[in-house]
């Protein structure tokens, strides 16, 4: 599967007109020998398919190639950026789940009442507001009030701060992109949660739990909730990929130094190995996300384990 993605990306990148060698050739500081060196190193004079095989061979040796744009090995840049993207995605993920699940439960319990209506209205609005627009508006508000920093990840004086100061600084920078990224997710997750909860609440065992006189809280939180949340965990893996994809755009707008903005730079400068590594990483993250979701599901829902 990952091989397929890599091949696709590789062909796409080779299809694109001009390549990085042309770019570095224009740079008078780089001699013709260096260009030739790269050419032989990555076998660029050979046919495309052979180049690809070469790349895969290197990959298996743990070498991701060399970024022509940044002039450092790809793995160096990627690992930094991966961490940044991870922070952003994780924060947004936490916000989404911590807000959406209680909201969904509340909406289901007050079905068609005022509270439900209000929540549904707002989730429609949030679902339809493009995240990039939200990011812009938040940034604008921040620029007007001056409470939050405008984009980026660190303040210029970040290095002088102590550990606590660093954490606060990072947190303040995180607020806007994470919020912009989460709102849409909250809306959709909340709706799914509400739907699941309503379905479960209509089941017979809820009726019998109520009939035997359990307090309503126990019925809702220990009987209904545990069953309603299972399908969401399966979603979690897919959510992960969507999150990465959404994060990319927000990263670009909020100038957060993550994988997404890296990808844009890489694509623009036709930095082929950087693009390849990025795509591959996207795929790997997706698989990890799905794996985690499966493990978590097996933990939460014993029925799945016993079947095997």
């Amino acid at each position, binding site marked *: 599967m990952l091989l397929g993605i890599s091949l696709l990306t590789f062909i796409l990148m080779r299809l694109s007109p001009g390549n990085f060698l042309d770019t570095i050739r224009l740079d008078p500081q780089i001699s013709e020998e260096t260009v030739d060196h790269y050419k032989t190193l990555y076998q660029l004079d050979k046919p495309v398919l052979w180049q690809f095989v070469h790349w895969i061979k290197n990959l298996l040796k743990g070498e991701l190639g060399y970024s022509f744009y940044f002039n450092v090995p790809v793995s160096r840049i990627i690992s930094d950026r991966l961490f940044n993207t991870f922070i952003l995605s994780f924060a947004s993920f936490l916000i989404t789940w911590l807000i959406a699940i209680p909201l969904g439960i509340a909406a289901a319990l007050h079905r068609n009442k005022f509270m439900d209506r209000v929540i549904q209205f707002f989730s429609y609005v949030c*679902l339809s507001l*493009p995240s990039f627009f939200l990011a*812009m508006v938040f940034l604008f508000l921040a*620029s007007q009030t001056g409470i939050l920093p405008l984009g980026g990840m660190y303040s210029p004086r970040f290095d002088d701060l102590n550990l606590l100061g660093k954490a606060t600084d990072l947190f303040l920078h995180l607020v806007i992109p994470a919020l912009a990224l989460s709102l849409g997710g909250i809306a959709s997750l909340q709706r799914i949660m509400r739907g699941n909860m309503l379905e479960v609440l209509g089941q017979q065992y809820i009726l019998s739990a109520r009939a035997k006189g359990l307090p309503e809280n126990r019925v809702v939180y220990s009987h209904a909730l545990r069953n309603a949340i299972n399908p969401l965990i399966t979603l979690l893996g897919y959510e992960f990929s969507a999150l*990465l994809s959404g994060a990319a755009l927000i990263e670009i707008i909020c100038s957060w130094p993550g994988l997404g903005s890296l990808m844009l730079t890489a*694509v623009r400068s036709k930095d082929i190995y950087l693009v390849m590594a990025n795509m591959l990483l996207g*795929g790997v993250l997706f*698989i990890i996300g799905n794996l985690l979701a499966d493990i978590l599901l097996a933990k939460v829902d014993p029925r799945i384990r016993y079947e095997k």
Partner: protein
Amino acid sequence: MKSKSKEPKPISEFQLALNNFKRNRLAHFCVYLLLALYGMAVFADFLSPYSFENESRQYSYSPPTPIHIIHEGKMTAPFVYGIEFHYDENRKRVFEMDKTKKFPIQLFQTGDEYKLFGVIPCRYHFFGVPEPGRMYLMGADSRGRDLFSRILYGARVSLSIGLIGVLISFSIGLLVGGIAGYYGGGIDNILMRICEMFMLVPGFYLLLALRAAVPDDFNSVQVYFAIVIILSFIGWASLARIIRGMCLSLREREYVLAAKAIGLSDLAIILKHILPHTLSYSIFAVMLSIPGYILGESALSLIGLGIQDPYASWGNLLSDAMSIVRIKFAPWILWPAFFIFLTVICFNIIGDALRDSLDPMLKKAA
């Protein structure tokens, strides 16, 4: 179901669903709103007072022109005042109304020439003000072009991309899903692995990589089609998977066996007898996936990889707002976002309403 006519007519499932849908007033309203938006896009060159490239740079970021009906204490037909500006101490333009100049707003004002429906040359615009007056209904952009006109022209790109994209990706998705589900086995396996490959990569990354393969020297029409194809390239996989799941159960039905028995070809069975049963799902899936295309195009244009200036799309109009300071002194550049929002919410509401009204049929098909 009671019918008022004497002979009770049998009501088809689709009519039933349609009746259900009509009961949802909000969704009904959204249908009209969408029709209006699409109408705006079709008649953009007639409805807009200026062409999308009509610029006058001295009016860069001129604020929206207020429309007046009272002149020197007397009621008159709607008109606008002339626009004047001077520089303040920061060399920033400050716009003012020049109350001595008055330009009446006229219907069917002659202006920039355009071709109605692409063929009939025409100079009439629905409304406008005579030269040298200028009217900015929603303000001006950096080059003094009328934002309202540009939004109308941009609607053509942004709205049509959703429709064409969905058309392409759904034809691929339905066909692939149908074939995979009908044949099963090895073909199914290969096709589904290909699908998964597309679903595996975060969509936006794939979008960027695909965009990189588009030559730089494409003209704007070519770029437009490239974007449509790229977007539908990403969207088909998830649909194909769902359709395949449905087809797996549909192919076991008796009528499929009957069709096979009378010697229909496999393709004919898939197209005529299996895929129509997935229609109710596809209909609302289409509605709910159109916003994705609109947002995808906007995102690409926003970061400068989509439709290029001077052509307008809602995304590239918004790219002006990427520098946050500009929002402060020209907040009207956020207007395109409002239109994106309006379109997306309409599609979402209609899609949801359709799903609710088609629900009884869905349960039957599943």
